[in-house]
């Protein structure tokens, strides 16, 4: 019913493509300059940004944080807020300059002709209103439907975005839905008034990979069937590759490259685009490979750029680059690049990191006793006993019977989605949470019992690095003071000696020693994460838990931190438990991987084995959902999982509810047997190993030539 043609007298008839090979763009942004002003001065968020989106086309707007990509999207919606101001430029939508419209005319366009979906579905829905009410609002506002008519339309919309029981979802409050369902509801809201343009601002960034794959599939299908145009704002090149026909790369508020997605991502012309593509972690079994990274941070501009914005970080920069602003050079095909050296650099790849020939990987000591041993670990949250019978509760199982070891100098990756229990495992290993059952042995000693008895020596030997680099540093303490604390706790009395230690630790993680006097807000995200790592190293630990330690960082910085962590492992012989949702990141650093789902380990083994068949059905789906660039080879057919209908639990396999290869009732009723091979590869599944091994490899390029294991 969404595709039913509707008479729209105001819109001129579409010229048939045969007559006009180049239809007029639906959205034409010309010379858009945006700045944020406050008492301390102005900051330029976008300088002379131009791009066009044709009808039915999806354009990716990519760049790292601070590149201005979200600002541009918000300017199109007239939702800049917070001191943001469009200084100059035109935003032509269907030939009309939106900047010449009154605020109420723009409000009438929003949600009707131009609709939006934002990043975080968990916070984009109002917790106090039902989902159905929120989807109905624009229908009532823009289309003049009665609440009853709108309610009927809401059901159709929810069904169209793949929700199986629209009636229940419409009556639900947002917190009663999963993240994937919430994002579907937001997409349904955006589609309601049959818009011509969708603004998608990182619409899948907050979702799990398997859910993301389904949402992207849905968006691609809808854009196609409704002939929708979309502006797809994202930092994720793999996703952009999957859904966008064209791409525009922003850096420091300036468009540095634009063109067909396939061409830009496989043969980037601008040095920044080269760097971005090179720094993207790809699934690899070559663990010793250092990821290329882009040094430095984005410079903040106050006025029009006086030189190439990327020159300070560009390995190819010359004197000309630093003294003259660059002009956009566009070829006849419409591809453009803002670099005068682009042609000369056409065949030159982004430089590899120094192979660091002095790096001396420590001989692994696989034969010695493991450093950490986890035995039948179980953790239940929220169980409570009470004298009031209606308050007694069995609790939620976060981790169910998990056993594994971490060897000395070994990096064990833990991969799983939100709610898989991966963070709980990390917390129990650091004795931040007491296990409900099972033991954790650290270097031969029972960790829980020893710390319970007040002995803190083991704490010094096991440290933690969190995801949120800003929130894990006290904003009112200098970097030096933050790092001094663990040293004092470790009993280092001499203040002068502590100061020297802090300086050497900062140098160790690649920061100037003078940073000890800075406050966290004076540092960039990558620098703060280096400080967190330095602080974790202060007590000279043997074991570090990295809980999503690089997930919040931009690709170029992420590569940087991953390299640092790898270096520290090689030089200091550290063991890591590397917890992440990103299997590509894990493949770069981990020796062994645990794939966890619903609090249990469904597959475990050396990274080279886990990436190849036989796969656990969940691992296979997870791997196939990883977005990739075109140059990385043919994509295997994607395995799309259903949204989780119920929370995992019960007696059977935890994955049974979503498993695409479920055998039958045996999966619901019996815990799966563990198949184990000689090289330590273990899969917990009812399907026989031989049958699992028949599946095609998700990454055929990895099929042969593995030197490890």
């Amino acid at each position: 019913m969404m595709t039913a043609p509707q008479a729209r007298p105001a819109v001129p008839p579409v010229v048939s493509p045969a007559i006009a090979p180049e239809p007029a763009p639906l959205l034409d942004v010309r010379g858009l300059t945006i700045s944020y002003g406050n008492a301390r001065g102005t900051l330029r968020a976008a300088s002379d940004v131009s791009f066009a989106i044709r009808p039915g086309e999806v354009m990716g707007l990519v760049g790292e944080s601070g590149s201005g990509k979200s600002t541009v999207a918000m300017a199109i919606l007239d939702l800049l807020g917070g001191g943001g101001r469009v200084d100059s430029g035109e935003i032509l939508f269907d030939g009309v300059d939106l900047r010449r419209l009154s605020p109420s005319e723009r409000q009438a366009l929003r949600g009707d002709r131009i609709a939006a979906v934002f990043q975080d579905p968990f916070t984009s829905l109002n917790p106090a209103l039902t989902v159905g009410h929120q989807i109905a609002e624009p229908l009532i506002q823009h289309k003049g439907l009665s609440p009853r008519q709108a309610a009927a339309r809401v059901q159709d919309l929810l069904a169209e975005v793949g929700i199986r029981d629209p009636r229940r979802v419409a009556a639900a409050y947002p917190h009663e839905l999963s993240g994937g369902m919430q994002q579907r509801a937001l997409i349904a809201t955006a589609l309601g008034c049959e818009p011509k343009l969708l603004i998608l601002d990182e619409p899948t960034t907050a979702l799990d990979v398997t859910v993301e794959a389904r949402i992207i599939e849905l968006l691609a299908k809808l854009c196609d069937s409704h002939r929708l145009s979309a502006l797809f704002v994202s930092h994720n090149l793999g996703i952009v590759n999957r859904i966008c026909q064209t791409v525009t790369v922003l850096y420091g508020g300036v468009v540095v490259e634009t063109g067909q997605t396939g061409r830009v991502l496989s043969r980037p012309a601008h040095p920044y685009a080269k760097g971005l593509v090179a720094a993207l972690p790809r699934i690899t079994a070559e663990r010793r490979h250092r990821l290329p990274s882009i040094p430095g941070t984005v410079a903040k501009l106050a006025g029009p750029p006086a030189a190439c914005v990327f020159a300070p970080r560009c390995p190819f920069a010359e004197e000309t680059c630093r003294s003259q602003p660059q002009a956009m050079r566009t070829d006849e095909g419409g591809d453009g690049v803002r670099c005068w050296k682009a042609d000369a650099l056409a065949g030159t790849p982004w430089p590899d990191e120094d192979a660091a020939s002095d790096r001396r990987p420590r001989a692994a000591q696989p034969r010695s006793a493991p450093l950490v041993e986890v035995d039948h670990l179980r953790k239940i949250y929220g169980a409570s006993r009470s004298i009031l019978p209606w308050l007694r509760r069995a609790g939620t199982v976060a981790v169910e019977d998990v056993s594994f070891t971490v060897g000395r100098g070994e990096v064990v990756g833990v991969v799983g989605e939100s709610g898989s229990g991966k963070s709980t495992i990390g917390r129990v290993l650091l004795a931040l949470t007491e296990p409900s059952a099972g033991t954790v042995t650290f270097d031969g000693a029972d960790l829980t019992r020893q710390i319970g008895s007040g002995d803190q020596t083991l704490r010094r030997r096991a440290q933690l690095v969190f995801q949120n680099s800003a929130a894990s540093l006290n904003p009112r303490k200098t970097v030096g003071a933050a790092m001094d604390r663990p040293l004092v706790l470790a009993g280092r009395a001499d203040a002068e000696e502590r100061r020297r230690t802090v300086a050497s630790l900062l140098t160790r993680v690649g920061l100037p020693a003078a940073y000890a006097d800075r406050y966290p807000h004076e540092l960039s995200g990558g620098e703060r994460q280096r400080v967190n790592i330095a602080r974790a190293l202060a007590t000279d630990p043997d074991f570090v838990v990295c809980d999503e330690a690089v997930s919040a960082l931009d690709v170029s910085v992420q590569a940087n931190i991953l390299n640092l962590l790898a270096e520290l492992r090689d030089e200091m012989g550290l063991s890591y438990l590397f917890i992440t949702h990103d299997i590509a990141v894990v493949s770069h650093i981990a020796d062994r991987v645990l794939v966890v789902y619903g609090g249990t380990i469904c597959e475990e083994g050396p990274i080279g084995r886990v990436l190849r068949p036989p796969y656990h059905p969940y691992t296979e789906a997870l791997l196939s959902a990883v977005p990739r660039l075109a140059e990385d080879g043919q994509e295997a057919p994607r395995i799309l999982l259903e949204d989780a209908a119920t929370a995992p639990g019960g007696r059977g396999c935890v994955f049974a509810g979503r498993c695409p290869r479920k055998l039958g009732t045996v999966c619901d009723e019996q815990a799966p047997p563990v198949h184990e091979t000689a090289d330590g590869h273990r899969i917990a599944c009812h399907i026989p190993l031989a049958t699992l091994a028949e599946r095609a490899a998700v990454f055929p390029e990895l099929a042969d030539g593995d030197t490890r294991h």
Partner: protein
Amino acid sequence: MFAYTLTRLVYLALVLAVMSVLIFLVTQAMPGDVASMIAGQFASKEVVDAIAVKLGLDQPLIVQYGHWAAGILRGDLGRSLVLEQPIGPILMEALARSLVLAVVALFVVAVVGIGLGVLAAVRRGKLTDQLVSGVSYLGIAVPDFFWAIVLVLVFGSYMKLLPTGGYAPITDGFLPWASHLVLPVVTLVLMLLARIARLTRSSMIDVLQTNYVKFARAKGMPESVVILRHALKNALLPTITVLAIDFGLILGGVVVIETIFSYPGMGRLLLFAIQRHDLPLIQATILIVSAAYCLANLTADLLYAFVNPKIRHGMRAS
């Protein structure tokens, strides 16, 4: 929701039981002796002892407490020693008058305070915002008795528009009743308004920056809908808590204001009981005030659930 309310009521009973013990012990520890106060300054020891026996004051504390607590459970709050009347009716009358004051004052505070808070948040940093801040600070910074005296002088003594104090029951007619309420209510509003307005302003500012407000704007909702339907309902949670505390505060007696306006509420009753060393009256009054406080808080928590479905959900689970 039902289980939640039941749990809270069980806790409420426990809190009151503990309170009753504390109240009983504290009043026992007060200086002075009831029997000798009743007997008068020049009474002989025999007379004082006789009175003590008559009141049961010669028995062990635990027995005295038992008698008292058992009486309360039967709905008997005891007899006032000074007034020589049953306490129940006296207390209920004072409570009713305090309730009137609390309901009217809180209604005005809620409407005006939330309104000003929303206005200030929406016009953040502009003149309106600064004006609201300035005026509400003036209310909070100047002590309540000052406003009370100024109001009495201006409207009572000079302009003779309103009675300077006292209370008229509604049976005397609406106008006399209302005119006696105006000055105490205005004083209370001046005292409480600032906090409510500031609180609403700051939580409204937080909510206006949330993604769901941004998304509501992206749907093309008019600003009035964004603010009233999407933002306000979520911004009200902290305000409700503070309103409930204020409600308990007024119900428990605002001694200074009641004294200045000679308003016969809980505050004046308690003051009278303490001055005259009327132990049973002190005990009963404090116990009722505690109960009123607890009930006001429970009401706030249930209101929370009404406003926020997520909390309702949590209550169903708990």
